Every structure is written in structure tokens, then in C-alpha cells.
């Protein structure tokens, strides 16, 4: 069976504030695959997730990225999201004054509009989001609060996971690069991610620790150091790393 590539990164170079962070990265992720990118602190793992989502301030100095066959670098952050890219953020930002429900309704309807689906009115939306929220242990009260304001680490992850569930992206990036997240919060997001796995949906897990990969088992593991992938393998590579550490890969440069 031939596999359909979803994301193709080709010889990518990117910089932030005049500093070259990604140097010659190659990575192809096919439909239905789960890839893990592991690396030491400061290797540029989070930069990779922001570059993929189009965060302003990240300058691409070379290479190509194709997403569903399209030139990703020509798409705005919102276009990427509407096409099915979703970043589960390590530290989602607080937005005072914007209730969760208001934010989610704008988001869901922007995506639905792009997919030529009718927009949901307020009543339909509230019913829909309450039902989805319930599955993740998100109360009606939490939906009324301003986005992430005063949320615990676990609540923030629940909200990220709820967005994943209602936006139904085909490509999710889980950025847990250096996070010291507690185990419960980690499980919330892992369960949410696993529930969305499917033959057409792909996942990129960016992590420092092997721990997360006990909950989200990857098909491929890549070791990322000094701005590019230095070694690729199956899930056993993560185990190996746990024992030997990153030192041998960092030395290579």
C-alpha cells in the first residue's frame, strides 16, 4: 500500500531574532503516522512547532514545507489551522475578557466555513460544546470563564484537548518540549490525542522526555540536535535514549 504524505519538510532553515535555529531539517510524515521528535533543551524543538504553525517572528531562510501538497510557507496561521493543522501548546496564553465559549465558537465557525459547512448558531454551539466538554471533564462553568485565565496546568491541557476534539484536525503537533507537566495533566492530553488517532490523522510529538511516549506510542522517533535530525528509528530509539541520554548526539557536531 502506498502511503500519502501529509507533511513534507525539505532542507529547512529557519531563524529567530538573527539566530539560526533550524539547519537543514528533513522530515516526511504520512497520513496515519505518529512521529516523535526528541532532543535536548535548546535544540530548536519548539521553534519547529512554531514554524509549522506560522507564528510571526520566525524567518524561513531556506527549504520547503508541503502540507497536503500545498506550499505551507505561503499560508497564514489561520489558513493552516483551517486546513487541519493544530498545535497543542506547551503554555497556552491567557486571554482575559474572552470567555472560552465565545472563543471556541469563533474558531469552530471559521473552520466550518472553510470546509463549506453551515456555521453553528449560539444555541447549537453551546449544546455541542457542552457535550464534548463533558467527555473531558470540562464543566459548563469552565466554559464561561475567560480563556486560560486562572486555569490550572491540567485545566489548560483539558481546554487544548477540547479544541482538538471539536476542530478535528488532520495533523496535530503536541509541543511538550521542556514541560514539567504533572502526570495527570499529561494523561489528559495523551488520552485526548489517542482518541483522535485514525488512519488519515497524523501526529507530531515534540518532547524532551521519553515519559510522554509511554502514553502516546509513536511509530517513528527522531533525535533532533543542533537544528536537524541526527538519528531516526522506531519506538525503541526512545527507550535507548532514556538509558544513554543526549550527550552522544550533541557531541556529534
Amino acid at each position: 500500500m502506498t502511503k500519502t504524505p501529509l507533511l513534507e519538510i525539505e532542507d529547512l532553515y529557519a531563524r529567530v531574532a538573527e539566530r539560526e535555529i533550524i539547519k537543514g531539517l528533513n522530515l516526511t510524515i504520512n497520513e496515519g503516522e505518529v512521529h516523535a521528535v526528541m532532543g535536548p533543551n535548546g535544540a530548536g524543538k519548539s521553534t519547529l512547532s512554531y514554524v509549522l504553525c506560522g507564528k510571526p517572528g520566525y524567518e524561513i531562510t531556506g527549504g520547503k514545507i508541503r502540507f497536503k501538497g500545498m506550499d505551507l510557507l505561503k499560508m497564514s496561521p489561520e489558513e493552516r489551522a483551517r486546513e487541519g493543522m493544530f498545535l497543542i501548546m506547551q503554555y497556552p496564553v491567557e486571554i482575559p475578557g474572552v470567555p472560552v465559549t465565545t472563543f471556541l465558537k469563533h474558531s469552530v465557525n471559521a473552520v466550518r466555513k472553510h470546509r463549506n459547512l453551515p456555521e453553528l448558531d449560539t444555541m447549537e454551539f453551546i449544546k455541542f460544546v457542552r457535550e464534548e466538554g463533558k467527555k473531558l471533564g470540562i464543566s459548563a462553568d469552565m466554559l464561561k470563564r475567560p480563556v486560560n485565565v486562572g486555569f490550572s496546568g491540567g485545566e489548560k491541557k483539558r481546554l487544548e484537548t477540547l479544541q482538538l476534539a471539536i476542530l478535528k484536525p488532520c495533523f496535530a503537533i503536541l509541543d511538550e518540549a521542556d514541560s514539567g507537566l504533572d502526570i495527570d495533566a499529561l494523561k489528559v492530553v495523551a488520552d485526548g490525542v489517542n482518541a483522535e488517532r485514525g488512519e488519515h490523522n497524523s501526529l507530531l510529538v515534540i518532547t524532551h522526555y521519553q515519559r510522554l511516549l509511554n502514553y502516546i506510542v509513536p511509530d517513528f522517533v527522531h533525535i533532533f540536535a543542533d537544528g536537524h535530525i541526527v538519528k531516526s528509528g522506531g519506538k525503541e530509539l526512545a527507550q535507548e535514549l532514556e538509558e544513554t541520554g543526549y550527550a552522544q548526539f550533541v557531541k556529534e557536531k
Partner: protein
Amino acid sequence: MGGLLQQAELPGANIPWLEALREKGRRAFAAQGMPTAKTEAWKYTRPRDLQTDDFVIRTTDNDKKCCGEAGHCSCEKQEEQSLPFECYEICFENGCLQHNHLHLPRGVTVMPLMEAITENDEIKAYLGKSVDIEHYPFAALNTAYLAGGLFIRIAGNTKLDKPLAVLNRTHSCHENLFCNLRNIIVLESGAEAELIESFTYDGAEKSRYFNNIVNEIYIGRKASLRHCKFQNEAFKAVHVSLSQVKVREGGNYESFCLQRGANLARNETKVLLTEEQARAEVNAAYIMNGWATIDTTTDIEHLSPQTYSDQLVRGIVGGNAKGVFQGKIHIAPEAVKTEGTQQHKALLLTDTAEVDCKPELEIFADDVKCSHGAASGELDEEQLFYLRSRGIGEDEARQILIDAYLEDVFARIRSEKIKDWLVSLSG
């Protein structure tokens, strides 16, 4: 004497005490003159656009010209603009009171100021008694032209069942109109009321006029007034307003002012908390664009122990506009166990937008809690990216964040229907 101090034929010229009061106003204005860039209280809000010689004073004469004998404006009006909820509505067209038939509850008096002056000695206890015209040039001018406005009194322990709305509309038929209104608002002990003031225009948005408003508000023991104002004057207009408020023991004054119009606007609130447990909340929001200057000035004087004040002001400034906030809290030596807080925050949407903020605390008492905070900045890039990374378009995301910026100040409006109305006018 040119400029804004002109010869005008005013009603009630045969009432000696009224004429004496007007004369005091004329002298006080002549002594101070127009504020300039050197006038401390006006240095951020230079009244540069007040090249005033061409303003025409509203008098009884042009009352007739504009409003006809029947008292109704003859110029073309847009459809009746009413508030989207039940209230007692009183309209001024070009500063001229329209004779609505209000069925007011017992204990509630609303009458034209001139009627109160000619028929009711009670007004003497209030008119001009709270405003320091020696230090407020526009209040002096307002005193010189005393005639238009309302006398509102809520009798002791009377609770007004619906808001009282005073709607001021200016029509383009009367270019360069200079209109002075004085409202006397008295809440006797235990009275409660909601008052809405709105300033809007009909017709050409380029029409130039000047509204100069003074409210003298007296809040009795354990009385409570919620005062909401919407200012959306035409974009070449000038709007200057002073609300002078006296709050007695256990009394409560809560105000909210949304300003988004005029070329030059100043909304000034001066509150005296004269007795124990008196309380004031002064909140404001301003949204501006173009070349406008909108000024919010407050001065809260804590004169007795255990008095309380809280101010929250939010602004959104785009284009080449300029927002000004001057907030003063004064705590007198005897005002122990007092609390005064103030916070101002403004969002700048363009590089050419400007905000000047001058907080001032004068604390002469021990054992008080007093704080102020001020900040201005641009939209948060992280928040903007978060929304866009969820599929929300950039313009929509910006609008969500702009609306959110005002959310906490709108949340201060206790009445849901008034809040919904003002939120709908802020978009």
C-alpha cells in the same frame, strides 16, 4: 470681549438673583479666559480647536428659530431614536427641551430649569452651590448662560422604577451652535435612581457645534444614583462636561461613561465624599479614531472617615487620536480608614495614536488604602497568534481582543439592559 463670551438675550433677565449668578459666571470666565497649553488642568487636552468666535450662543431667540413656537425642531429628523428598554425619556433637540408627557411616579420631579427658577425657591439651595466656577472656566461660561437644562428631584425613600434617560441630539440644521445646559439632580435620603445621558447627532456628521454641560448632583443620606452616559457627538463637535457630585453619609454614586465621538471631548467628574460611608465608583471607556482628543478627568475628594472610591478606565485609541486620563484622589487628614483605588489602561492600535495619563494621589491621612495603576500598550502578539492558530482570521481575532479589552469595565455596569445597550454601541 469676543469668543465664547457674547451678548445674549436670556430668559429670566428680570430675576435679580439669577442675573447676579450669571454676572458672576461672566466675571469668572473673563478672569480665567480660555484654557491654553499652559493651563495645568488642560495641558494634555489643548483646546486647540476652540477658535471660538464663530460659535453661536443658544438663546431664546434662536430657540424659536430652530424649534418653532411649538417647541419642536423644524429641521429634518431621522426616525425617533429611543433606547431599547423601558425608561422615562426626555429629549433635548439642539439644546431645546422637547415637551414630552412623562407619567412620573409620585415623588419624582422633572422640570425645565427655568421653570424651577421662576416657580420654585428650592432651586436656590442647589443651583451654583457646588461648582467652583473660579477654577472651571467652562463651568463659569455655563453659569454666564444659565437657562437650559433640568431640575430633577427624587423625594426621600423613593425608588425610581425605570431609568430616567435624558437624550441630547444635535441636528445639522444649526451649524456652530454653542449650547449650555445645567442639570440639577437631587436625590433625597434613601432615594434610588438610574440616570442615562446620551449625546448624539442627526444628519451631517461633519457639523460643528459645542455642547457645554454642567451637572450638579446631590446625593442624600443612604441614597444611590447610577449615572450612565454615552457620548457620540459629530466628529467636528466639541463636548465639555462637568459632573459635580456631593455624596452624604452612606450615599452611593456609580457612574459609567462611554465616549466615542467629538473632535474634542472632556468628561470631568468631581466627587466630594462629605460624610462617613459615602461611596463613589467612577468608570469610563473611550474608543477613538481619526484626529479626536477624548479626555477623562476625575477628582475624588475623601473628606470623611470610611469613605470609598474606585475608578476603572479603559481606552482604545486608533488613527491619530489622543486619549487623556487625569485621575486625582485626595484624602483629607480626617478621612481615616478610607479606600481609594484607580486604574487606567489603554490600547494603542496604531503608531500614531497617543495616550497621556496623569494619576495623582494626595494623601493627608494615616490608615488608608490607596492605589493607582496605569498602563498602555498594543495588542498582545501571543494572544493574536493563539486565536489565529485556531483558524480565526486576523481581523476577527483583533476585534475579539479589542472587545475583550473593555470587558472588565463594562462588567461594572450593574444593570444588564444598560450594559447590553452600551456594549452594542461600542462595536
